[in-house]
């Protein structure tokens, strides 16, 4: 994707991020050493199952992890070269919503039911851009037009409950892009939408990206969305990235067996398969995680090697930009030798 002209310099770089939750049942390492970067105009997909730490990763980037119990215990978050972890709360408030913004999953809870659309879209503009009066109103109408709300000058007087689900999510999108951020984080923004509305919304996000060159981090569990939207993908499992690389490379030649299994377990609309590959077992409990390889609960017990219990997988760059977590025990084979493979 390096040849692609719309992709520019690195705007966000996350290095070895660690976010732990201290609870009375023990320490939950929700994010355990995650590193990735995002370029201007690029879309990075973070895929994983629930509990894999993808949402906590982006909440940490936004510095929105509730503390206590959550603590960012290590790492760096560099937004245009500035480490967000060094900022105090006031400084962070100036960055949040301005340079880095977020679109949440459920538009009904993301919008305040007692304020009209104009107030909510205008809030960030008032605070960050210092707009007021007719200028503010003009910009709000402009933003709503950008997200294709019909008749924006009358619709902005509506309250959230008067809008349909798709329109509400577009309003949330308008709030996200209102201050022209360099990074937009979209946390499963379409899971509550219908298929046709979802397609409309994803196209809208892509058009907005083309216009503004915003870098988008897309959190999702759906490989369909990754295929449609993303330039690069990071697959997360139990708080770690297990594979990261160009979207075509990951789809054509997934190196980690977990990535391969995830892609293969999704039914296709285009063909009639006899039987789906199903990943056996359940993901591990991230609280008081056992040492060694995280994939042990998914593996066939008789295949387990004593090394699996002691050695942690390490990330290796297999080809430029394509990182895979290798088991230190079977470093010569692709991914893990013991993981049940889909054939």
């Amino acid at each position, binding site marked *: 994707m390096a040849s692609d002209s719309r992709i520019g310099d690195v705007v966000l770089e996350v290095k070895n991020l660690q976010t732990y939750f201290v609870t009375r049942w023990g320490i939950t390492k929700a994010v355990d050493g995650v590193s990735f970067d995002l370029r201007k105009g690029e879309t990075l997909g973070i895929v994983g199952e629930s509990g894999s730490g993808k949402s906590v990763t982006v909440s940490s980037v936004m510095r929105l992890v509730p503390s206590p119990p959550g603590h960012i215990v290590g790492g760096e978050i560099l937004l245009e070269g500035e480490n967000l972890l060094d900022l105090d709360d006031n400084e962070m408030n100036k960055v949040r919503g301005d340079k880095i913004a977020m679109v949440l999953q459920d538009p009904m809870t993301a919008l305040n039911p007692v304020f009209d659309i104009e107030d909510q879209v205008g809030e960030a503009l008032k605070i960050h851009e210092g707009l007021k009066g007719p200028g503010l109103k003009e910009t709000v109408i402009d933003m709503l037009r950008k997200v294709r709300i019909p008749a924006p000058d009358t619709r902005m007087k509506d309250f959230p409950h008067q809008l349909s689900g798709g329109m509400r999510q577009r309003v949330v999108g308008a709030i996200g892009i209102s201050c022209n951020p360099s990074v937009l984080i979209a946390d499963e923004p379409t899971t509550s939408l219908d*298929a046709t509305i979802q397609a409309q919304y994803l196209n809208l996000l892509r058009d907005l990206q083309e216009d503004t060159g915003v870098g988008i981090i897309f959190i999702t569990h759906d490989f369909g969305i990754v295929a449609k939207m993303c330039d690069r993908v990071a697959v997360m499992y139990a708080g770690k990235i297990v594979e990261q690389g160009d979207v075509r490379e990951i789809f054509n030649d997934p190196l980690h067996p977990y990535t391969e299994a995830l892609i293969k377990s999704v039914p296709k609309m285009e063909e009639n398969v006899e039987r789906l590959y199903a990943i056996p077992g359940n993901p591990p409990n991230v609280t008081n995680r056992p040492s060694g390889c995280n994939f042990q609960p998914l593996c066939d017990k008789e295949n387990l090697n004593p090394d699996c219990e002691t050695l942690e997988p390490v990330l290796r760059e297999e080809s430029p930009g394509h990182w895979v977590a290798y088991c230190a025990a079977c470093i010569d084979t692709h991914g893990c030798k013991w993981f049940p493979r889909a054939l």
Partner: protein
Amino acid sequence: MTSENGSLLEIKNLKKHFPVGGGMFGSITGKKEFLKAVDGISLTIEPGTTYGLVGESGCGKSTTAKMVLMLEEPTDGEILFNGEDAINASKEAKRNYKSNVQAVFQDPWASLNPRMKVESIIAEPLQVNTSMTKSEIKTKVGEILEEVGLQQYQAGLYPHEFSGGQRQRIGVARSLALNPKLIVLDEPVSALDVSIRAQIMNLLMDLQKEHGLTYLLIAHHLATVRYMCDKMGVMYLGKLVEEATTDQLFDNPTHPYTQALIGAALPYHPDDQKEEMLLEGEVPSPINPPSCCSYSPLCPEPDPQCLENELITREVEPGHRTAHCALCADEYGCYWFPRER
């Protein structure tokens, strides 16, 4: 004991209209309106097969499922089970119907009572509907648990001790307890993690083969329907707009709304960027929908006649029916509706 045409479940012109608005005296003042959630659908399900109902939220697919489960009383129409009328049946026959038609619900966090142990959850239908003794029930519960891939000792645990996929297995176990003939699956996998979905779908298909079960699957994810169903129907605003075998429908979708749904589905590979046909407008409200062509709000250039003509159903090929606008009966579906060209 089967019906003449060999179907297990037959639905004829089923309707459900919910009264809305108009206040307390709405029916007197004439202000009462009706939300036509399901507006005359007919379908048949053969024994041992899976019928998929797809559509977007608000199209009436869940209301249809509720009526089949007798949780909602139809405004009009018939439900025939093994050729016998199920709605106007005797109390005893209804009881029998309800134990033959079971359900698996969408959200395994909401559909299991958190205060009941797994064994009581699965045993409850047996206690209510059969005369089995306590020890017989206990054996039966153990058998069912093993059948859905859980272990016998887990009968003594509470739902919160299980993961999402395991909970859905408990839901499936409960639906199997009475050896039903038909199971209504209302979005059985959409609340689960991607990696778990395949497990549950495979389990459901294995159980179907083993017990000769019949499924009515409610879903919005087209690939799930393609994987699990033999026959499917596409619902839009309370009506069935296209019905065919799964292969026919995916290979040759004739109705423009079906084409739009398939066009909006996500690709499975980054190189599979298909020509998209996007709907511009939004689906109209099912409260007093436009009298005939309910697509007109989605159309870029609706014809005034669209609002006057009646929809007719036509058989495109054997077993493949599509709702047509009478105005453009020569075209498949509606002439004005945006479609792939």
